[in-house]
């Protein structure tokens, strides 16, 4: 709940509500698929993510 509250507050402050559908989609996908994926960063790129 704290996370959702903060996320909404963040989107409101930054006026970025258009990102919300994308984030919801990602959270749904994450719960289905991505949780099983590895999280290693690519070895030859600056750690931008």
């Amino acid at each position, binding site marked *: 709940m*704290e*996370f959702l509250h903060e*996320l909404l507050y963040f989107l409101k402050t930054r006026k970025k509500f258009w*990102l919300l559908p994308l984030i919801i989609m*990602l959270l749904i996908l*994450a719960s289905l698929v991505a949780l099983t994926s590895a999280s290693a960063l*690519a070895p*030859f*790129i600056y750690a*931008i993510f």
Partner: protein
Amino acid sequence: MRNIILGISAFYHDSAAALIIDGRIIAAAQEERFTRIKQDAAFPVQAIKYVLSEAGVSFDELTAVAFYDKPLLKFERLLETYHAFVPRGWRSFIKAMPVWMKEKIFMKKMLRKEFRALGATKNTPLYFPEHHLSHAASAFYPSPYENAAILTVDGVGEWATTTISYGRGRDIKILRELRFPHSPGLLYAAFTYFLGFKVNSGEYKLMGLSPYGIADDPQTVSFREKILTTLVDIRSDGSILLNMDYFDFATGLKMTVTPLWEALFGISRREPESEITTAHMNLALAIQQVTEEIVVALARTASEITGSTNLVMAGGVALNCVANRKIKDADIFKNIWIQPAAGDAGGSLGAAYAAYHIGMEQERIYFPGDDAMQGSFLGPAYSDVEVKQMMARYAAVAAHYPDITALTERVSAYLAAGKIVGWFQDRMEFGPRALGNRSILADPRQPDMQQQLNLKIKFREGFRPFAPAVLAEDAHLYFKDAAASPYMLFTTTVKSEWRIAPVKNAAASFAATVEESEPELSVASIYERLQQERSAIPAVTHLDHSARIQTVHRTLHPKLWALINSFKKLTGCSLLINTSFNVRGEPVVNTPEDAWLAFMRTEMDYVVIGNYVFEKSRQPTLPKELFKSFEMD
């Protein structure tokens, strides 16, 4: 009640922890030093345990914890970047999103979980200063100035890649910001990648390679022009626009669109560890020149918009000591101070400072003329008991010199005889440089010492330069600019009286190496250039007669000062080679055990740990299983 703030940097590269109490730095350390994994990005459990123990406090006694960036803002940047470039970037998107969905977007929860494992039983207030504010705070608050222009330049934080701020008293105001993907740090990193070095650690190598390029070679001139006309547009205020057709980092898993770069420069991307050619050296010089142009323009803008006569800097690009020299030479500021832990590790310290001064509105303590970094000796120290325990564990044999004068006389005699000595004393350095407490020392007058150290001790590329540690009071005898430089963050030039006149046109003297089809590239190979004696202190003089000096001060570095002074009495030479105590790919040593093992794994002749002197020939054979190779950086 005391305000005890823990600062943390983690999850990207160079995780670290720092602790300040009532605005004074108590301790700071990088996680890599404990885990022995270079640039370890993991949550800095051991570094946190160390800083808490150094302060003698438990986790629950902390007033606040500060994390060095804003995760949601970074996530926003990622999503908007992918959206802007769609469908390009799907590979990177697939790679990045699981990490975010699983962990990083829930950063607060993840941090609290880690804190509980460290003994936290309550929710300590958490601050998330922006990445570049953390850098700015790390540069300004410990600096010796009441007010300063603050320049931070790195790869990328949330959105910002470069900021100019003004610091006064306890306030920092961000005045200008350059945003992703337009980044001087990522531009330099792209060349690091193209020249076959590892991104995020090979930038030092690129900088070290650049003086091997020939400035007036038509190829260098042409490379520079191509960079400026095709890859990057530099505006008069120092802001830049990258031509993103040529860069892959925003959406891909590489830094460059390599076929386009190869077509542009007419050379192939250098394979890692392959031969370094003249073209590689010239390209390194060209991008170094362009980077210098950018940072000098940024410094000029910082001066104009802040009106301050003081400049402080942080961010990875601030570790480019050649560019720092250019800012100094441009005479824009009266004073310049650079955070010695300018990379992301230093963000932990900056985050703690930002929470204290900005978040909690506490007044700043500063000491005019004296910074608050304590020589950057902010890490752990080890007692004689711990040294003896290590000796017992490995049956290591040492001579004990309880008197510092006797110790320095003995060790300086070894150095004067051409021996290579590991030097381990007191508290470990915070930041990438070894400043005399975890160092390998040698005589800089010996012509082959640079190659010997690189190949037999550090197991790294032979061309890489070494820095001189010089008695502060004698620096003027050897170097053109002898201003205090205790953190090895500026280059200077060796005075003409010490130089050995180069063979006129080094290029022509090695005509045998010239390809007939490429007469314009009539220059020597890197190793032929390396063997040219440049000065009477050749091992610390770069090809262009520059040297990245560390001035050694009696008050700040008492033991190293005593050692060099003793060496001076013996030889008349007031300086030593000072390089970090590690081998290639290994983090700098932390404990006596790390030091003894590194000593045993290399051809180092002696190691001094506290007052104990270990001679190689007297040590037992190191069991095979203790020989360890580190991943090449």
